[in-house]
């Protein structure tokens, strides 16, 4: 765990290098599993973005945007996890995925994985960069 002062320094002496390079981008996927040793049958994208948004939704999100901001935080955690793995990043992602899963539905376990999307020439390349350990979905 990094201390508050170490984390504060970049805020007080900022680098302001927004979007200087466009690096490979992580996507979070998850899979529910019926048992601890069951293989993953299908991965699902976590919070896929909608096809389009109405003007009302866009304007509303200027004032209230918790889900999208949480998704951006999870993307930061995914980047941190691939850069410097820590239990904190794994926990933050897993807890938030688990919170969206209904424990009453079949499949008491889940895993998540990170897919890195990048450009290779004119094509897009997707590679599995991380697969989490098995987690149990907490009871409601």
């Amino acid at each position: 765990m990094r201390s508050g002062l170490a984390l504060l320094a970049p805020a007080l002496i900022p680098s302001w290098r927004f979007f200087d390079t466009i690096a490979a981008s992580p996507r979070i996927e998850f899979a529910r599993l019926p048992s601890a040793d069951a293989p993953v049958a299908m991965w699902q994208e976590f919070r896929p973005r909608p096809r389009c948004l109405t003007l009302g939704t866009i304007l509303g999100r200027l004032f209230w945007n918790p889900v999208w901001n949480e998704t951006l935080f999870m993307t930061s955690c995914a980047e941190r996890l691939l850069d410097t793995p820590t239990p904190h990043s794994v926990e933050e992602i897993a807890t938030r995925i688990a919170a969206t899963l209904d424990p009453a539905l079949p499949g008491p376990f889940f895993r998540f994985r990170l897919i890195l999307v990048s450009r290779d020439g004119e094509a897009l390349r997707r590679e599995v960069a991380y697969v989490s350990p098995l987690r149990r979905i907490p009871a409601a």
Partner: protein
Amino acid sequence: MSFETAQRLTEILLALALLQQSLEHLGGGRSAVRLFAPRIVLCLLMLFGVQSGWAVAGLALLGLPILVRFQGPYNGGSDRMGLLILFCLCLTHFAPGQTGREAAFGYLAVQLVLSYLISGWVKIVNPDWRSGRALRDVFRFSAYPVSENLRALAGCPRVVLAMSWAVMLFEIAFPASLLNPATLGIGLTVAALFHLANAVLFGLNRFFWTWLAAYPSILWFQDRFVVPMLG
């Protein structure tokens, strides 16, 4: 704009920005409530000018456990800018002497200018940004576009090239807007529209409100230092 007016306006705008962020966190369980409920109270004190110096100090200190909780900023640059404003505001209340207080507020104004200038510089020296490729990549595969149909913009290279150059030229040219009050008014309007576009396209609503909160510092800075220097 006087120092006191700019300081107060900054407090009001930042209180509103932090209130909005803090309310979003209240659904995040007991640990989030423990951190963000006190922040809401302090924001309300700062908003209404009740012991605002101590409220600012409390908010700045509370920023540390929040950073530790998320092991960094929750939403990158916007949270960092919020903390920078808080710590500068704190010094505008508690630094010894008017010179120290003005230096702290001036530091915020300079950082605001640098936030555009450096962002523009790192882009314009990158061939991928100059060709429009970088912004096409943002639309094509980054995590930022808020809807799938925005990804289609990656297939409009001329539009994206124009957008890239508009962003780079605006960011690089922003310091020149300090030359006189009219150009600064235009510069800040364009800057606010730029953040609004980022909020609409990439969902970066926190940047919009947080950067607005830093604008009074530059209005004061221009009045206090730039206008007298240029005569």
